[in-house]
């Protein structure tokens, strides 16, 4: 004790045996240092905006639109870190960020991985009171994709779907079909070099499967998309690869980022683009009324973001209460406006204008039946699937 008091250990002394003012014993020093450390840590984690509880969330940029309102409603502090990729979200959590964040909002196809890795907690149905209000179809998706032993592990928040958009000034009206991106003579327009596809296997390979299901009258391609995961055979994967390789010479390219899709389309670099509906809505909202988005007759893949709570969270109840607010009408509307994507809770439409509802707010439940949710490829063909896409890109 004497040694510390004389300054060889604690650092509060001057180092020459003389105390700088009042003597501080070890216990007082440690208590003070602890308090200072806690205060500093609280500052680092962003505490101080709302109430005493801080909920750290890893999610998409647009979720910030709800932050202030949720803090006021629940008297909690929310600390949002934006991410642009569901895979990155999973990788970070799998490497220990589940201790750092309470909530993460990946795309639905990644949730089973969080579940398999035992990173997430079951939904607290007492806290998520809005769950019963979401579309029945999404509740079915939850049952199908990430419910174990009767417990759901995620709450669908917002969604969207993929089809294709085209420039109505150059491409004549036609029956919506993926034939437009695979067949030369489907429409009376020269589309060679004027088509773009998504630069992502999980978005483009299913398009090939849906096309082949219709073109070859072989429903097994579609059936492979409809289970808990994609269950293509190696032969089907090879067929999809060959189709996409053959298509490649007709493509202007593959696009991975929505802003590049929008700028390229606006610049006139292509006429038909495999796209999400929200990109097209964003373009139409900006005055580009020549762009038309359609859902092909072969079917369309849909995505929905799903909030999950960390099994390591200190306050899962508060975390689920925050998730509940994501699908509350007022917050859901703010999120829908920010991302041009509908909420999974149809009641959100009541908070939107008629024009917003027409564009992205109110979706008929019957329409949901057209969509197949994106999902992971089955483990036994994952390498083949990934290699097939690499081969397409290398061709």
């Amino acid at each position: 004790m004497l040694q510390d008091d004389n300054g060889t250990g604690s650092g509060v002394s001057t180092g020459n045996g003389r105390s700088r003012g009042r003597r501080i014993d070890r216990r007082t020093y440690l208590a003070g240092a602890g308090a200072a450390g806690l205060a500093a840590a609280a500052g680092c984690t962003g505490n101080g905006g709302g109430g005493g509880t801080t909920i750290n969330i890893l999610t998409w940029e647009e979720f910030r639109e709800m932050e202030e309102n949720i803090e006021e409603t629940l008297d909690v502090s929310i600390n949002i870190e934006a991410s642009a990729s569901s895979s990155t979200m999973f990788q970070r959590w799998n490497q220990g960020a589940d201790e750092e964040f309470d909530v993460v909002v990946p795309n639905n196809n990644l949730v089973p991985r969080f579940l398999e890795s035992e990173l997430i907690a079951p939904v607290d149905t007492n806290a998520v009171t809005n769950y019963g209000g979401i579309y029945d179809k999404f509740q079915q998706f939850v049952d199908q994709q990430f419910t174990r032993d009767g417990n759901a592990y995620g709450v669908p928040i917002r969604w969207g779907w993929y089809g294709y958009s085209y420039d109505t000034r150059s491409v004549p009206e036609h029956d919506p079909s993926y034939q437009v991106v695979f067949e030369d003579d489907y429409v009376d327009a020269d589309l060679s070099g004027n088509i773009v596809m998504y630069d992502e296997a999980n978005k483009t390979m299913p398009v090939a499967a849906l096309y082949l299901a219709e073109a070859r009258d072989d429903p097994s391609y579609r059936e492979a998309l409809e289970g808990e995961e994609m269950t293509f055979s190696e032969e089907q994967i090879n067929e999809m690869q060959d189709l996409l390789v053959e298509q490649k010479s007709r493509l202007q390219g593959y696009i991975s980022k929505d802003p590049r899709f929008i700028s390229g389309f606006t610049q006139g670099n292509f006429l038909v683009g495999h796209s999400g509906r929200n990109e097209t809505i964003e373009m139409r909202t900006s005055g580009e009324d020549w762009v038309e988005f359609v859902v092909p007759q072969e079917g369309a893949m849909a995505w929905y973001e799903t909030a999950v709570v960390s099994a390591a969270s200190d306050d899962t109840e508060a975390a689920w209460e925050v998730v509940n607010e994501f699908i509350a009408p007022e917050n859901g509307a703010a999120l829908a406006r920010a991302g041009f994507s509908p909420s999974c809770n149809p009641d959100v439409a009541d908070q939107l204008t008629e024009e917003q509802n027409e564009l992205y707010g109110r979706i008929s439940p019957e329409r949901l039946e057209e969509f197949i949710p994106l999902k992971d490829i089955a483990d036994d063909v994952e390498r083949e699937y990934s290699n097939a896409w690499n081969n397409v890109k290398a061709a």
Partner: protein
Amino acid sequence: MATPNPDEIEDDAARGAGTVRARLVRTLSRPRTALGVTMGPGTVWIAGLLVAPLVFMLAVSFTTTNLTDYNIIWEPTLARFRELLGGSVDAGLLDGGSVVLLEVGSFQLRATAFEKAILLSYAIATVTTLLCLALAFPLAYLLARRSGPLVKATIFLMLLPFFTMYLVRAYSWVLMFGSKGVINSALGAVGVGPLEVFNYGVPATIVGLTHAYYPYMLLTLYASMDGLDFSLVEAARDLGASRIDVIRDQIIPLTMPGIVGGSLFVFVPSVGAFITPQILGQGKVQMVGILIERWVYESRLSLASAGSMFVVVSIVAAMVLAFRYVELDELGGA
């Protein structure tokens, strides 16, 4: 207590400082200490941030990544290298795979996606290097022969792109290329376009890389030519050598270290280029950097490490070949 004399205190302090300084100089004069002080930080830096990650990457390249939870399974295997090379390590390069590399009539040479990506990367990097060399050589020669404000202004203009972000420079070419880009629109306006060559793809990628790395070549060549004794050139001309002879027999051999150095500075980053082919290739140009990045994105870390090791080894081999012709300390100057 007696009050100390301030002058004595200053003298003591000066003696103390002198002693400390002398002790420090003595310590630093010892060869081992001097070596540690001068090379130590650099060595720690290189060991920690270059060698250690490389060793880790090498180790990971001999493992498997569990594709369900993305964890690395630490059991040594050659499977990832087999995957890169089309099924069998014994089979070697270009002995299998699903991608057509070359097709002449009924003859087809097939490769794996990785083999094609690495060959494409080397081809693009080679063309980029030759283009940079061809464009920079005459200008560097001119700049070395002339002096004055014009030379300074030219060098400044050549360096100007360096003052903007690489990403911005790459994006600036996006507007130029494409079926409705500035080049094709201009050609269309005069009735000769649009031309396929000015769409996004390999040519656009080469232009972007040439633009990005041209200053490296120019500055290296200029540094090399600036030390050239041009009286030799005049002597050769006086003795009847043609201009071509002078370039071939005098200038090129004398500036070879600059040519090799500049080529390395352009070639090596071009092989691993990622941003430029991503933006100007519009997803259709799969260079090896893009392929490895996708593997990382898909969390196939073992395969990505194996691919990266392959690139590192091939580049080191290219550098060893280059250093057969020049010494390391000659790079950048004649």
